[in-house]
Structure formats: structure tokens, C-alpha cells
């Protein structure tokens, strides 16, 4: 590995950190447009962050060290995850450290910490949110793993850059029915994992239906800022995983110059714009599921992903 690769590694990571709020802002804007509301500006999330970082933190009297540690851990897992997902280039030294399985593991670590922190204060909403989050997590996590395994089967590697290169370097166009299933399952997992409709609503504090918001109710100021940022990063990461698995075109391969990398960043932006708009459209069109239906939704995602794997094994494509 040369030094340039490390430079790209760090800059890709920083790019993800910087772009994630923008992406969230874009989705929010699209949603507002589609729902005939006047939209907040694109950089609203940055403003939120600035405001939160400047405030005094209010901590519950009996909050323990775990409660204060969790935002940092959650944020860091998302940053490290961003570092191993090839969003701009596949020349990532860190991607060898942790492959797709470890990526799912990192997401799980983040989830466990945020759930534990939610239980720490001991309020009714906190533990309710933690329980619901873990319920969604224990189905979404294997579903995501199965999606990644479908990709593994077609490309023969659990390292994400290798998957991307495998897809990009094929001489012929090869269609994979298994990825078709995996794609549907992935979208379902993305919605559930990022607290989106129809599983959760990111824009509500409607007390009895919330999941993600219930867990971070007790947080304020810088801790809340980190958690919000982490959740935007998570959405960004999921979008980038989706791009890498299903529409990798544009991502720069090993050892290419600055020109192609600029192109790759441009491609990423275009994909993000489209994906954000699609996400907003989907959210606007769908109604929130009853909470009891959420496990069913996720079980379906999981089984679809397993079916993708099965279809690959059966059809060999």
C-alpha cells in the first residue's frame, strides 16, 4: 500500500462525515416538497449540529459513564464503517482490516451501545425504544448479512472493494437474479435500520410509535449532536453500500488519477441526489406500519435475502 492510498482513505472518510448531513438535508427537503410544505434549507442539518454543539449538556442526575461514552462509540463505529465502504474509490487500506461481515458487526456494535445508553437512565421511553430497536436490529442485521452474502456469492469475496471491482471488471453485462432479490431486501433493511417510514418516522416524537427517537430522548447538546450525526452517517453509509453492491459505476478503481476520482465524486453526488429523492418519494407514498407489523416486514426482508442466496445457488447467477 502506498501513502496515496492512506490519503484517499482519510479523505474519503472525511468526505462521508461532511456529506452525510447534506444528504439528510436533501432527503428532508425532498420530503417537504413532496408533501407541499415549504422546505428547510439544504444545510439545515449543519445548523442543527452547530446549535447543539454550542449548548450546555443537560445530563440526568444518575446518568452513568456508559451514557456519556455511548455517543462517541456510536459515532466512531459509523465513521469506521464509512472508511471501509468504497463510496469513491476502492483503494482503501482499511477495507482489508474489516470486511463486509465486520461491517455488519460494526453497525451492530453501534446499535448495542445506543440501546444500552437508552436503558441507562431508566425511563419508560428509553427502555421501550431500546427494546424496539433491538427487535428491529435482530432481524435487520441478518437480513443485511444475507444481502451481502448474495453479493459475495456472485463476486467471491467478502471484502467490499473486491465486490465492487468484481462487478466493474466484468467484460460482459451479467444480470444476477439473486441480486434482484437482494436489492429488494436491502431497500427494506435500509428503511428499517435508518428509522424511516414505514417502520419508524424520523420526523416525529409521536410518543407511542417512535423507536429511534425514543432512545435518544435523554440526550442533549453535544451528545445529541454526535448521535444525530451518527444516524445521518448511518443513512449515508447504507446508501453507499447500496451503490457499491448494485450500481457501482463511477467508483474509481485501484491506482487511478485525480481526474477519475473527481469523476467518482461527481458520480457519487448524482447517485445520492437520485437516491435521496427516491427515498423521500417512497416515504411519502407509504403509511407507517403498526409496530406489530414491523417484525413481519423485516422477516420478509430476511427471507427475501435468503431467497436471493437460494436463487443464486440454484441458478448459478
Amino acid at each position: 500500500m502506498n501513502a496515496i492510498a492512506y490519503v484517499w482513505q482519510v479523505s474519503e472518510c472525511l468526505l462521508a462525515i461532511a456529506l452525510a448531513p447534506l444528504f439528510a438535508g436533501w432527503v428532508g427537503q425532498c420530503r417537504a416538497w413532496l408533501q407541499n410544505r415549504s422546505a428547510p434549507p439544504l444545510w439545515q442539518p449543519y445548523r442543527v449540529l452547530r446549535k447543539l454543539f454550542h449548548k450546555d449538556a443537560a445530563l440526568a442526575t444518575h446518568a452513568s459513564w456508559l451514557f456519556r461514552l455511548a455517543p462517541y462509540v456510536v459515532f466512531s463505529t459509523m465513521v469506521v464503517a464509512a472508511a471501509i465502504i468504497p463510496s469513491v474509490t476502492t483503494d482503501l487500506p482499511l477495507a482489508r482490516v474489516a470486511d463486509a461481515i465486520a461491517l455488519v458487526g460494526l453497525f451492530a456494535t453501534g446499535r448495542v451501545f445506543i440501546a444500552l445508553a437508552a436503558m441507562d437512565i431508566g425511563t419508560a421511553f428509553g427502555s421501550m425504544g431500546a427494546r424496539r430497536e433491538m427487535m428491529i436490529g435482530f432481524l435487520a442485521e441478518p437480513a443485511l448479512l444475507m444481502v451481502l452474502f448474495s453479493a459475495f456469492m456472485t463476486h467471491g469475496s467478502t471484502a467490499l472493494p473486491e465486490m465492487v471491482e468484481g462487478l466493474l471488471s466484468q467484460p460482459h453485462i451479467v444480470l444476477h437474479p439473486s441480486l434482484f432479490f437482494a436489492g429488494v431486501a436491502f431497500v427494506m433493511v435500509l428503511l428499517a435500520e435508518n428509522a424511516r417510514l414505514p417502520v419508524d418516522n424520523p420526523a416525529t416524537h409521536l410518543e407511542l410509535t417512535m423507536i429511534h427517537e425514543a432512545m435518544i430522548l435523554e440526550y442533549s447538546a453535544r451528545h445529541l449532536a454526535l448521535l444525530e450525526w451518527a444516524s445521518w452517517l448511518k443513512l449515508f453509509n447504507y446508501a453507499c453500500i447500496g451503490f457499491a453492491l448494485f450500481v457501482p459505476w463511477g467508483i474509481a478503481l485501484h491506482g487511478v488519477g485525480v481526474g477519475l476520482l473527481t469523476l467518482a465524486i461527481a458520480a457519487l453526488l448524482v447517485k445520492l441526489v437520485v437516491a435521496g429523492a427516491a427515498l423521500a418519494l417512497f416515504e411519502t407514498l407509504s403509511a407507517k406500519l403498526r409496530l406489530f407489523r414491523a417484525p413481519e416486514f423485516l422477516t420478509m426482508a430476511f427471507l427475501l435475502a435468503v431467497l436471493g442466496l437460494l436463487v443464486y445457488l440454484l441458478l448459478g447467477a
Partner: protein
Amino acid sequence: MNVVSALTTTTPLTALLVLVSAWLLIGALGLIQPNRIGWVARTLFPLGALIALGMAGMGAMSLTTGFVAQSSALALGLPDMPFHVRLDALSGFFLLLLGSAGAGISVFAAGYFRQGEGTAPGLLCLQYHVFLASMAMVVLADDAYLFMVAWETMALSSYFLVVTQHRIPEIRRAGFLYLLMAHVGALGILLSFGVLQGGSWQMTFDAMRAAHLTPAWASAAFALALFGFGAKAGLVPLHVWLPEAHPAAPSPVSAMMSGLMLKVGVYGLLRVSWDLLHAGPWWWGLLTLGLGLGTALYGAIFAAVQTDMKRLLAYSSIENIGLIFAGIGLALLCRSFDMRLLAALALAAALIHAFNHAFFKSLLFLVTGSVMHATGERSLGKLGGLIRYMPWVAALALIGSLAIAGLPPLNGFVSEWLLLQAFLQTPRIPHAFLNMIVPLGVALVALTAALAGYVMVKFYGVIFLGQPREQALGKAHDAGWLERLGLSWLALGCVLIGVFPQVALDVVGRITLQLVGTTVQRGPSPWWMTPITSSQTSYSGLWLWVGLLLVIGATFVLVRRVYHGRVRRTPPWDCGYPWQTPRMQDSSEGFGQPIRHLFGPVFRMQRELPKPSDSKPNYRVLVQEHLWHQLYLPLARLVQRTAERVTILQGGRLSTYLLYSFMTLILLLVWVL
């Protein structure tokens, strides 16, 4: 002969035997002053821990390159049947496991045992060390005779440990169930050895290795061994004793049973199926794999709905044993198709998981011990908020919980990663149906791992986080220094294997070399794992740690640097509701509710729901296993009824009994004619 030359000439095997006898000696010394805690707990148990460390060292020595298996016949046993012992890589590995995890448990036990817990401490010390010694002897045994003697000693000593508090009827009942299952299992093992000797009537393992069995007999031997060792390890549906016996025992004993004794069962199956038997048909592997995966999922689901912290851990043990058996099954399957590399990978995953489980499960069982001593409670519904009163235990328990949930960068993730990688290679199995079915096992493994995360959030969250559910919890105190030392040792093991997974892979590589004939591909350095090829898969625990810690540190520094760190303490907000009480938190039943809802038909539930008119509403739910009512109780009734039929023979008159003897004699004489 002076000491130095004695040390240079002794082989690891002799040293091990000396260590085992030292354990027995320590046990016996406990009887000198059985009620003096200072003598028994503070002196003898730490000594036992030192011996355990020595044993781990000897085990590790046998795993170095260039070590040749050693065996010898002892001057013990029956006149014509001396005990044979043997030390090879497989037994060395399990001694390493036994010693290293056992050392931590013994140190903890030194601080844990106190007066007034049923059995006198001195007697407990004897049982405890006999238990340890017998486990070591099972692993060292090289003939069926010694194996069975050690096996039964292990079962009996652990039985006495389980019924330490023999004044409580439930504990006596649990102990009886344990003893019963242990004997049914032992019967299977005995029969298996009977088949394995293959007509030579030689009980040494050497003779069994050389014996040529017909495929049918080999399968019978395998099935019996799977039954016997499965019963000891807790394979569904033979697991029923486990959630009864583990909670009944004192915590260090639970830790030993779950962390170590179950592994001895795993060892037995490995010894029989890989060493004594030769490659068999593929259904051996498929059967073990299926049972393992089923056990894993079953254990995880039931762990999620438990309300007693030790029962929860017991079910979690069942889950982990399932994963280990799945690895072994996959390896057996691959062996029957002569896919050596894949077999080595699956076996390595199973062995590392066994090792990991010994550490994190012992750690968590010991944590429950500390919690019970501090609070006197073991029901999850009466705990909570202990992180503020027991910071040490809470921090170490967090490591154990994260490790057992299979989260990177700790050790649980390493073995699960290896197992998943092994499953991902299975589409290459050259069998038209298996290459379709077996890869789907990966879904079950993933589901189990995710459920384990759920279980551990429940375990940790309900015990250590939130507000104390009872007033008395405010008086809880942290564990003593010996207990902390024991816990730290085990937690350190969890972290180290997570950081240097390749070291663990190298160690089990010696075993796969012995059993399969090959090892997985070596990583370029101790902190890189590349079991298949470096382009396909790689994982580095160390660099992941470094990356995570760097980012956490950088974030912390940046947040502190750029913005002020002022903190205001306020009452919790909770959407502006000021009348919060601890009872409004999720109870353990509440936290398990989604699982009960989702897997409803799996459970046998009895629910008492409050009526709308109740002024003091009471909700109660009892979750049981269907197996108990649909398999075991009918079986027990059948045995009872058969026994009642047989009692007709038992007339009570002496002359009738003499008549039986006389008739038998006549019949035999006629037969001889």
C-alpha cells in the same frame, strides 16, 4: 536425584499428571480445616489457580511446533488393564482451555466462597478440585476404561457441587435431573466405546484407531457418541438438565460447568469422530450440523425470554454449544467429501468458539455470582442500576456481554466470522443437493448471532442499567479484589483473542493438522487473519481496535477542544413526565415480549392477564419448553409404568427370590447342555 535434573527429564505428560495429583491433594487439604475460610478459600483456591496456570502452560507446550504426542501406561487401574494416558495437540488444546479459564474461575472462587452456603467450604474445595482433576483426566485418557472412570468422576463431583445448597428442594430436583441425564449420556458413550473396539476387546484408544469397522457399525458408534457427548454438552433435545442445573449451582461452579465441562463433551465428540473413527458418510456431518444449528437457534430464542439471569446464561450456553456443534458438523461434512481446507476452517471456527465461550461465559456466570452476593437477587425483575454501585463488575461484564454478542473487535466476533466464512465456501461441496442446503445454514448462524445481541442487551441492560428496581439495591457493593482479579483475567482473554485472532488460529492449526491433515492459510502477521486467500477475506482485530480507538479519541478531543464541556445535571426528561418510577422501565418480561410474540408457537406459555376492573393489576407469564411436556414427561410416565409392571416380580418373599435364582441356574445349565 536433585530437583533440577528431575525438571529437565520430566516430560509435559508427567508434569501434567503431577499437576492433576496436586489438585487432588489440594482438595484433600481442604478437609483439614473445612470451615476456615482463610485456609480453604484464601490459600487453597489460589494454589489451585496456580496449578491451573501450570496446566495451561503444559497444554500450550504441546501445541508448539515440533511436539510429538506422548503416551504412557500408568501403574494404576485393574491388574490387567492399566490406565493409559496420552498428550497430543487435541488434548493439549483442551488442557489449555481448562487451565486458562479455570485459573480465572479459581481466583474468583477464592474471593467468592464463604461460610453458610450449604456444604462446608472444605468439602466444597475437595469436590471442586476433584471436578477439575477429573476433567483433566478425561482429556488425558487414552483408553476407554480411564476415560469412563474420569467421566463418571466428573459427573459425580459436579453433581455434588450442583447440590451445594441441598436444603432447597428445587436444587435437589435439578441435581437429580442432571445426574439422570449424565448417566443416560454416559450409557451412550459406553456403548459407543463397546462398538468402537471392533471385536478386539482391547479398550485402549490405539486399538480402536486400528480397528476396522463396517460402515454400519461405524455409524452406530458415531450416533451413540453424538448422543452421549451431546447430552453432556447440552445439544437439543438432550439439553433439559442444563437450564436447571446451571442456575442451581454456586456461580463459580456454574462457570466451570458451562465454560469447561460442556467443552469436555465437545472434546469427547471430537476425539471419537475425528481420532478414533475414520471418515464416514456425509450424513454424519449433516446430522451434527442440523442439530447444532437447531440447538443454536433454540437456545437463543429461549435465552431471550428468561427472567432469571442464570437461566438466561444457561440457555445462552446451549446456543453457543449449538454453534460449536454446527462447526464440527460442517467439518465432518467436508471431511466426507475430502475438502480438507474447508474442514480445517470449520473445525478451527468451532474450536476457537469453544475457547472463547469458556472465557466469556465463565466471566458472565461469575458476574452473576458477584451480583447475587451484592444484592441477594437473581431474578432480573428485581435488579437494575448496578452500574452505579458496582462499577468494576459492570465494566468487566460489559466486555463479556459484547464479546458473547459476537461484536467486533472482541473475541466472539472472531469465531463467528470464521464460521460464517466456512459456510460461505460450502456451495463448492460436490453434491447436488447439499450444495444448495448447507449454504443456507449461514442464515441461521446470522440470525442466532443477532439474537445473541438481543439477549445480551437484555442481560446487561436489565441488571446494570436503569434505575434500581428494589430499594435494597442501593446498598450493593462492588466485588472484592480477588473476584475482580478473576473477572479481569477472563475479560483480558476475551480482549486478547479479539486483538490477535491469528494467534488463536495458529494454535488450533496444530489440531487441524493432527485431525484433518492441513491448516488454514496463515495470515501475514499475528494480527491479520486471512483463512482462505488474502484477496477473498481478511480481518485484523488489532487494526480495527486502533481505528476505533483513534476515531473515538479524535472525536473526544475535537469535541472538547472546539466546544466547551459544560454539563448540567438535571432530573431525567422523559417527554416531560415527572412522576417516573423504576417500575416504569421495561422488565425482563417486557424486554422479551417481541421475541415471545414473534416465536409464539415455540413456547409453552401460561399467562395471567389482569382484568380491566382490577385495582391491583397483576401480570404473570410463565414460559416453558414444549419438549418437556411432549417428550420428557411422557417418557418418564412410560418408564414409571414399565417399572410398575416389573414390580410384580418383586413379591417380597425370600423364597420367591430364591426361586428366581434357582430357575436362572437351571435355565443356564440347560443352555450349556
